[in-house]
């Protein structure tokens, strides 16, 4: 064979090689990635947790602010509250001339439910206020019985009694603490840095009947219902919100509410006993 033929053959073989060994491209199946983690790859945005605070909103112009107020009603027979036996601590007994009833269920004369925390569920988060929330131990009871604070807001816990109280907070998300307050008039300032949307208990280990509930919200749009069942949340930017009402015995209820600029909306919650 001639040289030319040989060279032609070689060239042809090389060409064949080059084409064949290119390798096939396969479509990357996005689903298959990340399997080595042992968990299916994040279906990304889907699962933002409920406690993730929504983006901080611009400060509300006072002119636009709306108010949501209303009433918490109670239907049915209120559970009979037992009298608290304060005999174990003579100081506590001396502070009350009339028998003190357990504060679990406080129903007003017209069938209104007090001590219900009402807050806006999806309001924009705001910076923590500098003014502290106050929790006072007075007459061997917590005043207020239930309260809501903002994440990062200082909480001033005061002992107005001439007896030993200790403040034992039992949150699930924040750090728990248990501090004694032996001196009358002394205050401890504490802070909850994380949002905790389920109210938790604060108790006194010396006086077992003392109970208080607290919820930590990302914003300041909350209110506690009074003896006459009324509550009021002011300075709310206009929009659609969900209002949550929580009672320690009768559970939690939600209602949607829409407020326009400078509007005052009335909302009624009804708890059944």
């Amino acid at each position: 064979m001639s040289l030319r033929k040989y060279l032609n053959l070689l060239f042809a073989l090389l060409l064949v090689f080059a084409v064949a060994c290119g390798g096939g491209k396969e479509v990357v199946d996005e689903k298959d990635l990340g399997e080595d983690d042992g968990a299916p790859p994040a279906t990304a945005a889907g699962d933002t947790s409920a406690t993730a605070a929504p983006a901080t909103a611009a400060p509300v112009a006072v002119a636009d602010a709306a108010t949501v107020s209303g009433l918490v009603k109670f239907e049915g027979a209120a559970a009979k509250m037992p009298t608290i036996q304060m005999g174990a601590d003579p100081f506590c007994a001396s502070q009350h001339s009339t028998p003190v009833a357990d504060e679990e269920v406080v129903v007003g004369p017209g069938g209104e439910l007090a001590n219900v925390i009402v807050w806006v569920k999806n309001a924009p988060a705001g910076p923590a206020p500098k003014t502290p929330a106050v929790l006072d131990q007075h007459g061997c009871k917590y005043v207020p019985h239930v309260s809501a604070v903002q994440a990062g807001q200082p909480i001033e816990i005061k002992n107005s009694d001439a007896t030993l109280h200790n403040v034992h907070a039992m949150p699930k998300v924040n750090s728990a603490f248990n501090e004694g307050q032996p001196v009358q008039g002394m205050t401890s300032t504490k802070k909850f840095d994380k949002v905790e949307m389920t109210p938790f208990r604060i108790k006194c280990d010396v006086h077992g009947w003392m109970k208080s509930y607290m919820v930590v919200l990302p914003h300041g749009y909350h209110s506690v219902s009074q003896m006459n069942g009324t509550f009021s949340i002011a300075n709310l930017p206009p929009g659609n919100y969900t209002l949550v009402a929580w009672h320690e015995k009768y559970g939690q209820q939600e209602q949607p509410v829409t407020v326009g600029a400078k509007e005052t909306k009335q909302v009624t919650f009804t708890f059944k006993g």
Partner: protein
Amino acid sequence: MKPQEPIPHNYPMRKLNLIFALTSLGLLAVTGVMVMYDYVRGWKWFQLEFNRIQAERIQQELTSKNDAETRKRLAGIERDMKAGQVEIARNRNAYLEAQKALDEWEGKHYAADQNYRFAKAVLDAKRYELEAATVQHRHDVKERQREYDTRNAHLAQLNLTLQEVTRNRDAARARVDTFLKRIKQLEDQKKDLTANADLLNKQLRGVAMSSDNMILNAPMLDFINPTLKIDQVVLNDLFIEMNYMSVPRVDRCMTCHRAIDRPGFESKKEAERLAAELQTKLDRNLVQPSKRAEMEARVAALRRIVDGPRDMMNPFRTHPKLDTFVGSSSPHPLLEMGCTVCHRGQDRATEFGRAGHTPMSLRMEQRWKKSMPFFPSVKDYEKRNWGYEVNPFLDTPMYPREHSEAGCLKCHSGQMEVGEGEKINKATHMVELYGCHACHKISNWRFTDLQKPGPSLEGIAEKTTPAFAFRWIANPTHFRPTTRMPSFFYQRNMIGPDVSASERAQNIKYQDAEIHAIVTYLFSKSTHRAWSAPTGGDAARGKELVNSIGCMGCHIAQDTVKDEKTGVVRVAKRDDFPLERHFGFNLTGVGSKTNPAWIFNWVKNPKAYDPLAPMPSLRLSESEAADITAYLMSLQKPRFMQEPVRPPSASAVRELAKAYLVNTLTDVDANTKLRSMSDHDQLVYLGQRSIEKYGCYSCHDIKGFDGLKPIGTELTVEGSKTLHLFDFGFAHDYEAHDGKHEHILHTVPSWVYTKVRSPRVYDDKRAKPYNDKLKMPNFHLSPEEAQLVTSVVLGLTKEKVSENRLASRDARHRAVEEMRKIVSQRNCRACHVVNRAGRAIGPMIADTNFLPPDLTPQGGRAQSPWLFSFLKDPTVMKIRPWMNVRMPTFGFSDHEAATIVSGFAAEGNEPQFETMRYEIPPQQNVAIGREVYAMLRCAQCHSTTPVDPANPPLPNVADAQSLAPNLTLSKLRLRHDWIADWIRRPGEMIPDTRMPANFPRDPETGGFRSPLAGAIDTPQFAGHKAALLPYFANEEALRKTMGDAVALTNYLRDYIWSVGLNQMRNPGAGPVTPAPQPQPVTPPAPVQQTARAGSR
């Protein structure tokens, strides 16, 4: 010239030339292929890719550092430098003169220095001559002396000159420096700003694809100093088995897994988890103030990874839990442990397949099997197509991901628990509880010296009836779905779908016969003691007692559970309850099983029935025991007792018995023997043989079977058994007892998992005589339980670890581990939190004030002599008389109690014997302590009224004072220094304690704040202040002490020590005599001084 004639050749030259050329080219090609084959290695791709990632990161960092502000500052510095230069130019002459002066002085200094040094050398020579002359008593000593002295003086002179010159030169230098100072300052500033950038640039040069690197890494040249090379760590004291030899491991995994020990390359999932963990630590103030900033920076870096665009792909990821594994500050640093000791796999391999990587699932395996293109890109790495092939010749493939904790057992089998090893701890606890070690010998400390998992059968006739026993052995789960007793009979290899109908009928007859035989044997050899029945007994009160005094810590009393989410009621599974509550059996149906007399005497004193019974005595009174008996007898399962029982077929009994007899006798003799035995005797004989065959004696104490070897395969090195030694039989798929369809892979983990889950599946489709069929019983393990047990088996290997690497070898740790073994064997965690875990009874007790105490700080807290007395007899001191749950009397031997006590002392790093209890605190401290005690109002919860430790007054639960320990008992019980520590930080020792922190921590300094600091000056405390002032030099000193938490707690401790009792009762006789009912005791009336005639 004559034209040359062509030279004749024998061969056609042109053709030869062509062939030669082609073969040379071919040889060149082959050489090229050889070099390429050797040069192109998979790990090089990974290293290149990793370098690229690093280069990208460094670039990013450089650009981020090169931001506007830095640039502005740099420009400013440059400007100033120029200005400085200009200034020098202006003072040029002065500068030049100063420089000239400096040069002169430098020269002078050089000369003076040289003179000095030469003179010194000459002096040394003269000294030698002098000393030689002196020693040799030569005549020229005096001359030498003179010479030496002159030289010495000369040297001193030169020294002074040198110092002078040096001083002058330094001055000259300083003068020059004043000109240059400004410039030098600016240069230093510039260096500060650019230092980081310089470092990064240097790193970048190391990893970037520069031409220098390419030459270093070129084929044929890369033996000199390549940048891409194999990375290995040689571990001389960790061994791998290689064909009858143990050789040190040489781990080369980090050749591809470049960032395994470097933080910053975590996957997003891991970064999120780690950030949350570290943030929790920061929030809870568990971090030293000096380390806070570092940890916060780390959390910030992790959060940046979470928010970053792409997830880091393996093999470039950081190892998860870097602080526990692989990190340089972890207990398992990479350079000391390598990788394969935990993960297994071929240590010296550098190819993906040879290393023994094991896919986690079938899908992962299929993805791995696809091959990568020749020149891969980032996209190809993401696809993870490694061209993987299952290698059946690997002796030690890697553990699949779900079994990665199996490797812990190599070093940690001397411990009861591995720190942070949740899965392996649960697995070993399960093995211990279900009793695998009873039938299968495991020669590890962890699984030796453990009690038998089943109750003693030596007195079975006293306890139950043959009717129950038959039904129980035939089908334990019909009676008790959560039982630990496995099913031996009527399994799939006897009556399963693969067994022919005729064989099935035969097998059923045989199995019936065997069970009847076993029952007959057990009852014929049983003792027949008489137990007295109770009189009366209120079942309702009994139920209350059972639910309150602590039975529910070790026992369950329910067969069904209500699903929390759906509200559906379903049959209970073992997993529905913590393992501790499976220690004692499920109480449902116990009334059908046994009789009142037995229960009555058992609950009063278990050890009377069986001295080795793990059940302790709850010191029940007669009426309490009667009530409990009535309640337990009311828990009946009549349907179970009505299940039909087939009577034994005489022919089956004979055949089976004969099969055993012919092992030792001839056929004829066997027949004769059989004919001479009555039916009952035949059953007894067959029963004995069956118990031997099935190994019942391994888990139960049975008369006549003392000291026999366990029946199962020894598992001590089962994890090292090679794949080809496992008998997979003919099974590929099977349906497990819970209906789940399972697939058997051809791997060791899969074999073990299948074996544990459905032991007899390997008999499917096999033809075997009856007595040769597989005998391992079915434990009804759920898939999760089976996985855990498989981990343990895989972890039992014969790969050696040198002695000094084993965990917990020193005396202190061994004492702790021995204590933990007893804690596990006696199930203390049913009621107590021990070492931060446990308290299974917790959810049963509504009021958290009434929970059994947390024993995590017990070692540092309790005095050893007290603890010993308490363990032997808990009634010796009732510290928490308000509790309903009773600390049982376990009947510990002295040795056991001593082991527990020394273990706790070792855990708390305290001595067992101390003299502190005899110390009398100074009177002054006691007085101050008394005042502080009053100021802090401790008396509102604690009492300091002396009580009889064995019989403290019954509490009034609404009284807070009754729910805190009586402090007069502290001197006998608590360690002296622990008391002050506890008062300062109770929440840190026991997180949910009711004891408040009176001295809360200051989050900034980490110290303790005192509430009395400001309070001492208030009018309410005036009385206290007046009482305290005499003990202090002045008011200032008093105020200072009131703010010092440590001093205050020490005073409190001294006061508490002073009111302590000195004596308690010795440990009592034991559980035989139940403790008397606690009677309310009025506090002792103060002693009246009787008036005597004549006195005032």
